[in-house]
């Protein structure tokens, strides 16, 4: 090969190499160029989110319950920290903030390579000192971050709720959550978290390789969350909470008296709940639970000891919606409605067939299951109350009358589809199912009947290791585990029947308003900061029940008799001129052995045109007439525009 030829080969190879460069340049710059330009542009910008203040929470008349303020906080952004400066930075910050360097170091490492993390909230003084030295603190900034403020302390705590850091389940269900930012964990703070949170703002900065800001875009400010208007009335709520607290004190005074007079007392009362419900639309006007807590404690994070102490006394339980109790004699209105509407037969034992009256003499004796044996049901009173009709029976809370209804029904309808007719009324009125109230932790409650007992039996047979619901003797009964005695228990609100105070309130409201079961709720509207209404709670009819208006009138009149002449008459003795326009029913719930009775009162007013229902429950408070009725009376006086009298002991009645 001649040199010239060799040179041509070399030239061809060189041209090929330049050709490769040219083609690759075309590919990188023209084919892929637009994409590269975009990536190159993107990578120089960093986005810094600014937290949005949570929306306000106001009561039904606009009184501020919870709002947000801005507090200075120290934030470190690792994107602006040269790794070589890290240790010096942490030492300086440790000195300025008085925090251990190891703690800051851990925060720093946890934040990740491009992490941005809040260090601590600081006083205005500290913020000022830090901002003076900010040029020596790369990546450190003082930011005004929004913080929740609760203006009424523990008042309405269980409705308002509290904040907390999202847990694993929260992040799973809402992946957009920032694990470092608090969300609502209880009450409307949780249920309405999405509307309260608002929209975070952001600023965009352009950085050079040395992480210096070279350009800034106009920041997008955060949008505060929507304002939540509650159906609750702050003043009424305060009255209710004070009355409830006094009720607990009263219950314990009564217990002390009982102890002094040698009666058995198992526990002091410490827990109670109350609900005031608007019967015309399901709005909850007040809702209280004792013990309570101050949601402010959660704003900056709660230390575990305080949290544990509150949790141990079950302060976070909203008993009004999550407490399950036998509704006791307050349930007699349900049995009453069923008996009147369905014309239920009375048992023969204490019945005078000519007058249709029942002898409320304190004992109901039935023939036993075995030869020669008798079953005796003892009523709560010892003095013979005479021959009573259903009106007087409700007024006097005569168990024998309501047992007779159940027993008569059982004997007439046992094993037919009419057997559970009282339970059907209960279910229609809302017992045994979630009300769907817009609060956390609601309990369902139980309305027992044959189907439920059969299911329990089946479970028990299949799972002999599991805790038994039914006594073993019931499993072998030829007609199934559900007995007449269970229906008799149900008729007076005892036995396996359980309900929350809100369910009791809902059932009274539905009876008082003529059969309309409304969805109870605590929020009436959510309004964005710009004034647009995000939603407005409308009156939501869950179910309409067919009740004869005459029956309604009859019950309302009888409920008035309870407070004027019956079991709550002592508690209502001080009621003013409007006494004739209110009514209610006492209840004394028996529970497991070694627990004191639960005191109930369910009140309605005004009788001529029902507007509200008041339900008071004092857990292990004792007699409803003695302890719960005076609390309800106090609240009802306020609702009727009277000056509420002090809460004093009423008559010990069921």
């Amino acid at each position, binding site marked *: *090969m*001649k*040199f*010239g*030829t*060799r*040179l*041509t*080969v*070399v*030239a061809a190879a*060189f*041209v090929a*190499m*330049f050709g*490769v*460069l*040219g083609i*690759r*340049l*075309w590919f*990188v*710059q*023209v084919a*892929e*160029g*637009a*994409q*590269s*330009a975009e*990536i*190159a*542009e993107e*990578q*120089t910008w960093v986005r810094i989110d600014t937290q949005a203040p949570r929306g306000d929470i106001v009561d039904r008349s606009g009184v501020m319950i919870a709002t947000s303020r801005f507090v200075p906080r120290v934030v470190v952004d690792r994107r602006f920290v040269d790794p070589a400066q890290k240790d010096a930075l942490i030492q300086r910050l440790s000195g300025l903030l008085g925090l251990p360097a190891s703690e800051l170091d851990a925060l720093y490492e946890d934040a990740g*390579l491009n992490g941005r993390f809040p260090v601590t909230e600081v006083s205005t003084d500290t913020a000022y000192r830090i901002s003076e030295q900010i040029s020596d603190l790369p990546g450190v900034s003082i930011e005004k971050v929004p913080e929740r403020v609760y203006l009424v302390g523990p008042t309405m705590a269980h409705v308002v709720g509290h904040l907390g850091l999202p847990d694993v389940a929260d992040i799973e269900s809402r992946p957009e959550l920032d694990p470092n930012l608090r969300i609502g964990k209880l009450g409307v703070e949780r249920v309405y978290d999405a509307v309260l949170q608002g929209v975070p703002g952001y600023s965009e900065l*352009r*950085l*050079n*390789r*040395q992480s210096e800001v*070279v350009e800034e875009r106009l920041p997008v400010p955060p949008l505060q969350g929507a304002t939540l208007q509650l159906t609750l009335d702050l003043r009424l709520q305060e009255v209710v909470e004070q009355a409830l607290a006094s009720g607990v004190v009263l219950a314990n005074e009564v217990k002390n008296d009982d102890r002094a007079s040698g009666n058995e007392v198992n526990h002091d009362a410490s827990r109670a709940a109350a609900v005031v419900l608007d019967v015309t639309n399901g709005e909850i006007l007040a809702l209280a639970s004792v013990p309570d807590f101050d949601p402010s404690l959660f704003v900056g994070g709660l230390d575990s000891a305080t949290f544990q102490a509150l949790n141990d006394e079950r302060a976070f339980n909203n008993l009004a919606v999550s407490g399950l109790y036998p509704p006791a004699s307050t349930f007699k209105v349900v049995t009453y409605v069923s008996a009147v509407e369905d014309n239920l037969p009375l048992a023969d034992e204490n019945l005078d067939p000519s007058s249709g009256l029942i002898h409320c003499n304190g004992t109901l004796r039935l023939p036993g299951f075995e030869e020669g044996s008798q079953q005796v049901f003892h009523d709560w009173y010892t003095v013979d109350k005479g021959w009573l009709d259903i009106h007087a029976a409700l007024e006097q809370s005569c168990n024998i009358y309501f047992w007779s209804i159940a027993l008569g029904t059982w004997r007439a309808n046992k094993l037919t589809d009419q057997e559970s007719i009282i339970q059907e009324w209960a279910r229609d009125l809302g017992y045994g199912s979630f009300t769907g109230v817009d609060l956390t932790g609601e309990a369902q409650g139980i309305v027992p009947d044959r189907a439920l007992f059969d299911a329990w039996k089946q479970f028990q047979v299949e799972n002999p290791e599991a805790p038994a619901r039914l006594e073993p003797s019931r499993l072998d009964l030829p007609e199934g585990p559900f007995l007449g005695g269970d229906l008799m228990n149900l008729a007076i609100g005892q036995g396996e029947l359980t309900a929350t105070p809100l369910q009791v309130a809902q059932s009274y409201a539905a009876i008082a308003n003529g059969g309309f079961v409304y969805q109870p709720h605590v929020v009436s509207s959510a309004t964005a900061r710009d004034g647009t209404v995000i939603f407005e709670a409308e009156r939501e009819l869950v179910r309409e029940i067919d009740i004869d208006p005459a029956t309604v009138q009859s019950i309302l009149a009888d409920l008035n008799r309870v407070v004027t002449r019956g079991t709550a008459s002592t508690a209502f003795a001080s009621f003013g001129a409007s006494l004739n326009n209110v009514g209610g029913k006492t209840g004394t719930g028996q529970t497991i052995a070694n627990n004191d009775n639960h005191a109930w009162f369910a009140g309605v007013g005004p009788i001529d045109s029902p507007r509200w229902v008041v339900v008071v429950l004092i857990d292990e408070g004792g007699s409803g007439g003695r302890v719960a009725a005076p609390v309800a009376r106090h609240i009802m006086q306020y609702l009727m525009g009277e000056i509420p009298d002090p809460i004093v002991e009423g008559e010990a009645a069921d």
Partner: protein
Amino acid sequence: MTLLAHPDAPPAISDRRRNTPDRVLFVTTLALSMLGLLMIYSATRVGLERDNLPASFSMERQMIFVAAGLILFVALSFVDYRELGQLAHIIYLGMIALLALVFLFPAVKGAQRWFDLGYFQLQPSEFSKTACVIALAAVLGRPQVKLRWGRIGQALAVIAVPGILIFLQPDLGTMLVFAFLTIVMLFGAGISGRQILVLSGLGVALLATVAQLGVLRDYQVDRIRVLMDPTIDPTGIGWNIRQSKLAVGSGQLTGKGLFQGQQTNFQYVPEQGTDFIFTAVGEQLGFVGGILVVAAFLVLVWRLLVISANARDRFGALVALGIAAMFVFHVFVNIGMTIGIMPVTGLPLPFLSAGGSSFLNFSIALGIANSIWLRRSPVPVPV
């Protein structure tokens, strides 16, 4: 072979006028140097201002090298290149001495490549490239009937000594330049197909041994890994290649305009004034600017091959060919590295990258080439 024959090859010696310098070569080089000054200014001004230095500091420094390079070009044009051939052994020994002397100086960035002369850091490895071309041409340029193994062995021995010194610095880029020069010059010197096969076998064996011994440093292995898969560790070892490719790519067809472009101005690209100067060209002047630069180098290489074809003697032809190979390799590896087809090695882009040693070396090389051109034979000699 007419392709590379001098275009206006005269019919007779008597008609020829006095030879003129290679104007195309000179003008192209000058244009590249001027563009280099502009790009150096554009790529370094932000960083210099950060360090409270005048924005034009690097450019002004480079202007001195351009002036010095011009002088060297003219001076070497006047020197008869054949004298260089006779002095080849002195040049060679001087180069070896300089390459050995760098080890007496402290390491910079983990490598011993520089003499610190105060204002100027002399980098002997740059000059060794042209020196090796001369030394190889001196060995291979002796008259021969056929390239024999003895001659090839001599050539390999000549390149091995500076090669080992460079390897110790270490300077992988320069070693690759040596390898490329040797291959191209051996080919030009008439290596046979069989010899190529044997040498290729030896080369593969050598590479395998090198790989086996783990002689490559971690960072060198990383650079090759990143080339294979540009997505690995984009903030660490993948940073350079990713950012330079983004810079060139974001220039698109016509570029963002002179002094524009955040990849350069926000200093996302490393070594912007020196090894990665082409990213500034790509980002600011786009594909149009980039392809013009490539074309200018193609013109340069075309002129060098024409000079080789027209050289008076075999030594001159091989020197011009070696110089052409040196340029091609630098351009290909340097630009290729910024667009993701070559690993990152510290090879400068001739006349554009800031840096005195490389600029002067390339000026000397072209001065010698011009000298060969000026003394070309009236008719091409058979070589």
